[in-house]
Each structure stands twice: as C-alpha cells, then as structure tokens.
C-alpha cells in the first residue's frame, strides 16, 4: 500500500516537471521556447508549411498554429494570448483602437496574395463570367435572386444553391465588404462553413451551386470545380497566379497578412521565426497555392521588422477597394 503511494507520488512529480525543458537543439544557438500563432484559415496553409520547415531548422522551438478565423485571432492577439495573428483582411478600425487602448504595438506584414475565387460545379455550362454587379445582386442582404434565371434571363430557371465561408472568416468579411459595400452584409440563406473543404464537397456535388473561397482551395480541387471569370469593370478576368499578382483580377485580389506583436520580438525564438517566415513565405506560398508578392515587398517587410515600424498602412485610408463599375 505504502509502496503504491510512493510510486504514484514519484510518477506525479515526474509528470509535473519538464514543460519548458530545453531539448537537444543541435548545433549553434539551440533556440528554445514557444511561438504562438493563430488566425485566418486562409493563411493557415502557408503558416503550417513555414512551421514545418522551421521545425527542421530549430527543433527546440515549439510553434503552434491555431485556426480561429481572422476575427477570433485578433481577439486573442489583442488579449496578448498570441504573438502573431494571421489575417486575410486588414485590421479593422475597432481592432486598431483596441490595440491603442491596450498599449499593443503591432507590425503589419503582407506575406502573399490571394484571389477570392467564385466557383461553380463543372456541369454548370451556362456561366462563363459574372459582373461584380451581378455578384452583388446575388449576395446582398435582401436579395430577390433565387434562381439562375433571376440573374440573367437566358440562364436556367433553377434555384441557385449558395455556399460561402462563415461569419468568423476574414474571407467573408472581405468579400461582403467589397461586393456588398459593407462588411458582413450578406443574405442569410447560404450554406456557411469555416471549413473550406466542406464548401468544396457541397459545390462539387450540386449542379446549380455557386460559392466563393480562397484561391489555394480552388487550385487543389480544379478537377471538381470551375472558376468563374469576374468582370470588375475591366472585362472578365479568371483568377490565375498572374492575374492575381498583377492586380488585374480585381476587386477580389487581396494581400494576406501576419500581424506581429512588437513586444514579442524581444523573444529570440519569435524574432528568428519571423525572419524565417519572411524569407520562405515567397516560395512556400506558391507551393500551397497562393501568389508570391514582389521581392521588394518582402524586403520592405523585413526592413519594417528590423526597424520595428509599428502601425497599419490602412490607418485612415480606405481598407477595401471600391468597385469600379458599381451601381450603389
């Protein structure tokens, strides 16, 4: 009995220790510690790839990447629960004000381009392009569009089944902001999911479906889906790495960001991870299906980190592009 007691106490003590114990970190600096990242599901594929590569370089550092959505990530970021927030939209006014109130200085770093792709089922033979006006008519809050025929008279008289990211998604915020003119303004009767794979499953199985999500997910599923060319006033453009990069796929091209807490830079493992991120984001972004920024952007980002230039480039500036052919 006493033997069992002693044994269990020993086991308990052994389990209690060692959470921050430095593990064999190989050669030189032997960096240890944790880097906490959270935020957008759109940026997640890149962050995940970077974290995997970084593990090979600094195995002593524990990088955790969460997927709470852009908004959920900002909430944690402003609570100082995480070091880096991945965002698929720029920081909101309200979030910026909260950062000022909490005394948190952040650095805004673009890491890649994404083009929100509007997709349909491959058996959809009638849609080749949609104007931003038509997109607005379909997706606006009190939309009267229920069938494809309501959009254009020559299209079939069948009900449109809509799919889109959920309300916590930065993609949702950005799309509604740009197409409907107001963030989070959207009709309510669409199938919403933060998990883009569910949307893919839904659209690929439904002939009359229409949905939107990040380009990387479309690229991975090109055999099951078809992208629609979007006419933002300059003619219909299909989302491709080139059109997203040079900005012609408008207005649905957007940079995606990571937001870094300046105070976290004091931790050597965070500073090293950010350096690695900015160096490898270019090549890794392409690998996972996003579009690399021009090298100058990455150089500028690295300079900003070195100088600890805080703040958002969107302070006081309009955060979302205006539609060129919009009939508000």
């Amino acid at each position, binding site marked *: 009995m006493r033997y069992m007691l002693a044994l269990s106490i020993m086991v308990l003590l052994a389990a209690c220790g060692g959470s921050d114990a430095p593990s064999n970190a190989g050669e030189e600096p032997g960096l240890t510690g944790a880097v906490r990242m959270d935020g957008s599901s759109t940026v997640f594929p890149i962050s995940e790839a970077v974290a995997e590569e970084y593990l090979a370089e600094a195995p002593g550092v524990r990088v955790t990447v969460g997927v709470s959505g852009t908004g959920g990530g900002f*909430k944690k970021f402003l609570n100082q629960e995480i070091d880096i927030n991945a965002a698929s939209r720029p920081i909101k006014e309200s979030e910026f004000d909260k950062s000022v109130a909490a005394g948190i200085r952040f650095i805004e770093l673009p890491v890649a381009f994404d083009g929100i792709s509007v997709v349909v089922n491959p058996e959809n033979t009638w849609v080749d392009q949609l104007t931003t006006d038509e997109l607005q008519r379909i997706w606006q809050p009190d939309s009267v569009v229920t069938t494809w025929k309501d959009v254009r008279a020559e299209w079939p008289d069948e009900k449109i089944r809509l799919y889109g990211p959920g309300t*916590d998604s930065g993609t949702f915020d950005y799309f509604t902001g740009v197409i409907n003119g107001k963030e989070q303004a959207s009709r*309510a009767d669409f*199938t919403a*999911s933060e998990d883009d794979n569910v949307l893919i499953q839904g659209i690929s199985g439904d002939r009359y479906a229409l949905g939107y999500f990040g380009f990387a997910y479309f690229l991975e599923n090109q055999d099951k889906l078809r992208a629609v060319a979007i006419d933002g006033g300059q003619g219909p453009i299909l989302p491709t790495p080139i059109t997203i990069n040079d900005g012609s796929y408008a207005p649905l091209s957007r940079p995606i960001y990571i937001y870094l807490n300046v105070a976290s830079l004091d931790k050597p493992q965070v500073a090293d991870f950010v350096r690695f991120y900015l160096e490898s984001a270019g090549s890794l972004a392409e690998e996972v299906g996003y579009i690399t920024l021009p090298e100058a952007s990455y150089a500028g980002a690295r300079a900003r980190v070195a100088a600890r230039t805080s703040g958002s480039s969107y302070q006081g500036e309009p955060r979302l592009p205006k539609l060129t052919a919009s009939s508000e």
Partner: protein
Amino acid sequence: MAELSAKKTRWNEWVLEKLFFFCAFVSVITTAAVIFILLEETLTFFETVPVLEFLTGTRWTPLLEPKHYGILPLVAGTMLIVIGAAIVALPIGVASAIFLSEYASHRARSIIKPILEILAGIPTVVYGYFALTFITPGLRVILPDTQIFNAASAAIVVGIMVLPMVASLCDDALRAVPASLRHGGYSLGATSFEVTTRIVVPAGLSGIFAAFVLAVSRAIGETMAVTLAAGATPNLTANPLESIQTMTAYIVQVSLGDTPSGSLTYQTLFAVASVLFVSTLMLNILGTWVMRKFREVYE
C-alpha cells in the same frame, strides 16, 4: 465515559447530516445560479429588442448586416431535429423494449442489452462526424436534392443516440408490470401478441411516456451532432433536406467566434439559452403531469 462518547456521536451525526444536506443542496444552488445568469443577460437583451419581435420574428441574422432578431428559424430547426429523432427513436425503442422484456431469451437479452449501452456511450461529436461522412452521402444517393448540411442526417443520428435511453426505460417500465396481469391474459387464451399489445403496453404506458419525454429533452439539448451535421443556416422551413441551424448550434457558433462580450450579439446567446431552458422545463413539467395522470398503481 458513556456520556462523553454519546456527545461525540451526536456531534458526528449532526455534522454528517449537514454535510449530506449540503451535497444535495449543491444542485439547487447550481440551478439557481444558472437561472440568475440567464435572466440577467436576457433582461438586458430585451431592453433593446422587443420580446414580441424576438418570439415571433421570422428572420434571425444577428451576425450579418442588417441584423434581425426573430428566433423562429432557430426554433423551427430544433423542432425538425426533435421530430425526426423521435420518429427514429421512439418506434424502434419501444419495439426493442417489447422484444427484450416479452420475447427475448435470457441469453439474447444478455447480449443485446450491453450492445445498446455501447450505443449510448459513443461521444456525440463522433455521431456528428458519422452523420456528415456516412449518412449524408447515403441520403444524397437516395434523395439527390439533399444538401450537404441537412436536418435529416442530424435527426437520424440524434435518434440513434437517444435510442438506448428509450429502450432501457421502456424495458424497465414493461418489466414493472406485474406478472399476474400477463398470466391472467394467457389463462384467458390470449396470444403473446395480444397480451403484449392489449395488456402489458397499456399498463406500462406511463413509463413509456416518461421515456418519450426524456428522449425529446435530450434531443432538444443535443449540441455537437447538430452543429457538425445540420448546418449554420437559420432557415424557417419544414423540409428536412435543407440546411438549418438549431438553437444549440447557434450558441456554439457565437461562443467560438469573435463576439465582444457585452454586445447585443453576445446577449443573444443568453436569450436563446433561456428559450432552450424554458422549453426543456415545460417539457419536464408536462411529462410529470402526464405520467401522474396515466399511472396505474398495483397492489
């Protein structure tokens, strides 16, 4: 010496009695705390949104612009799940109970009953994924109109989840019917089927009804399975093949998101939770009343 030990015993007794009372009282305290928290935020919510609009409105969009606060779509979603689950669980549950209590051999009973308990032990989140990955594709083969998130898969799975409870309770209710009633039936020349359906089941009706009420209460409060399989689209519809959102799924959606505490959207959490609480409470009261009404007391 005897006096001293008697005093000590009385003191021990007193302490133990108070201790047991306190343990029992914990449940009362917890319920009171829950009611208090719900009430506080719900009343604040109703300062902004009129009660009538909340209870009779047909659009629920507190997370989208422009915001509407009519809870009927969520109630309709919950009802679809509950009715569907009842259709699955109640007939099969009662039939299983009849088999287990009236027809099954001792050996058959000893195999089937534990397996039923296993069904009850499967985590609800696993049921949710089972619905999403197995039942929904199956439904889409039979009925191609089925959407990827739909009420029917969730209802089927909730029914399966609730089945062991119904079967177990009905089994107990039927076994509680005195053997003398059965024997009386047999001695009058009735068949097994006649004895079961005309004598035993009517006699055990109050217990069967208790099982129904418990099953429905469980189905109303089911969260994980419906969040995963039924969807996040508040939709006032009677079509089970469409994507809907239940009250419980809405609470999950808002809690996991980035709603600032104290905002109106945050208060909708409590308002919806209050509706859930009140409906389960009313159901329990109804159940107790009906049970008392139909109870047959045997000497």
